[in-house]
């Protein structure tokens, strides 16, 4: 095999590789929108499932005597939905959405203050009787 043939062959291989790279790039481009939509969702789903497990293990450790305060606390922290309400009330571009946000902020606030304070009252009772 002479050097010229060898060079030609090498060039052909290189061109073929370039073609493949281009095809791969095009394929990637086509898939990108799908991946973009699926990835954040999968990411959030992963977090969601992990949090379910964390909740499961943490709550099994709660002593039955404190089941009522547990409900008080979970009820209070579930009003973290106030985050969504604040976004609607403070950043929305439609008046209607802002009104909905305002109502949601108010309802959630009842829950936040009510939930944490009533839990504190309950827990104070469990505390005080330790001395008795």
């Amino acid at each position: 095999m002479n050097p010229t043939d060898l060079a030609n062959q090498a060039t052909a291989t290189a061109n073929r590789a370039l073609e493949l790279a281009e095809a791969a790039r095009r394929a990637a481009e086509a898939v990108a929108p799908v991946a973009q939509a699926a990835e954040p969702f999968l990411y959030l789903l992963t977090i969601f499932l992990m949090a379910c497990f964390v909740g499961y293990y943490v709550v099994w450790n709660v002593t039955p005597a404190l089941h009522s305060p547990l409900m008080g606390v979970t009820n209070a922290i579930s009003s973290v939905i106030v985050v969504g309400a604040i976004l609607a009330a403070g950043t929305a571009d439609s008046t209607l959405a802002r009104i909905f946000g305002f109502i949601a902020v108010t309802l959630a606030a009842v829950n936040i203050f009510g939930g944490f304070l009533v839990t504190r009252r309950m827990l104070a009772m469990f505390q005080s009787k330790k001395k008795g």
Partner: protein
Amino acid sequence: MATISTLAYLVAAVLFILALRGLSHPETSRRGNLYGMIGMAIAIVATLFHHGMDLGGIVLILVGLALGGSVGAVVAKRIQMTALPQLVAAFHSLVGMAAVFVAAGAFYSPESFGIGTHGHIHTQSLIEMSLGIAIGAVTFSGSVIAFAKLDGRMSGAPIIFKGQHLLNAALGALLLVLVIAFVATGSPVLFWLIALLSFALGFLLIIPIGGADMPVVVSMLNSYSGWAAAGIGFTVGNLLLIVTGALVGASGAILSYIMCKGMNRSIINVLLGGFGAEAGGAAAGGATAERAPVKAGSPEDAAFIMKNAQKIIVVPGYGMAVAQAQQVLREMGDLLKKEGAEVEYAIHPVAGRMPGHMNVLLAEANVPYEDVKELEEINPEFAEADVAYVIGANDVTNPAAKTDKSSPIYGMPILDVERAKTVFFVKRGMSSGYAGVDNELFFRPNTMMLFGDAKKVTQEIVQALQK
């Protein structure tokens, strides 16, 4: 800025986990509650600095927080501990309603949540949104019914009609069709139709469930309020909402499971409802006639026997809460302790109207928590007890659960009060318990009935002990 707020949300999420962790022991529980408050404050402040927030909006938010916050604070301060179950039910309904309104806010202003443009919301977001609305609305109306039943604004008896389950199934199917149509078209009419139908469904799901099944219902709605928050979290792509929603959802689900196990019934059985409604009349009428007459005693008799007892186990139930007898019960316990007796309290998992209800009431009356025992722990001790003082409890002591296969409560774990030397039953009359079954304990030779209001009877015992 976005990184900082994400970081703040992460800190809040960790604080919420620590809050739940703190409840594993009474000693650490207050710190746990504090972690929860700090987490919530961080979450709110971080969101106020969100991109696109304007001054008018911040004012609006602060007004809402102050308005709702003061209502919540006043209610939390004034509520009586016996009314705790209905308060928690009312709070759950607020979370459900807030979820619906947040979903509406996102629907009418999708740009501010980054889920598309007006009229062109991403398909995936529409699916998540419909889940959020549906769960939120069911939580709302279901909790309203639970509240009404617990607060006595509505009869606690199950409401059953023909074709009930068929109707619910049909409405469920219709809901699914509406969701599909909503995802396909993004129409506002369909948005509100989904909300309306879910309200109706939540209402219909809870009305057939009777009063004493309320611990399961309250736990379940607790769980729903979490799933609703998580659903909204997926809609608006917020990590904190998803994590917190999952925590609360899991917690409520575990409580529901524990409550169902406490009654040896499946969650399906509870949800289908109507428990005890049909059995009531027949069982009560037939069986009582041939039994030995019951032995009724006076508070003085009870005081005399208890004064000479070494070990006394008190079994409180919902009747104690209704009569507000916890304070006087603790006084009785103190007097008996002074006489040298050992006094303990036995709590059945489903005693009362919400998980842990009795524990809170006893704590309110300053009963030391070391004296309050769970079912597995206390059951072996009844055999050594001289007296079991059953106040406002019935079905949870019925030995039929162990022996009578035809009984509706067969298989339910019970407190073995019948092994005590003497059993006192404080009861208003001879009516059967919630499950509609007679309690054969009433007719045993070692049982003495103390007829009357739980608080009054216990007060009279206290007076007799003081003499």
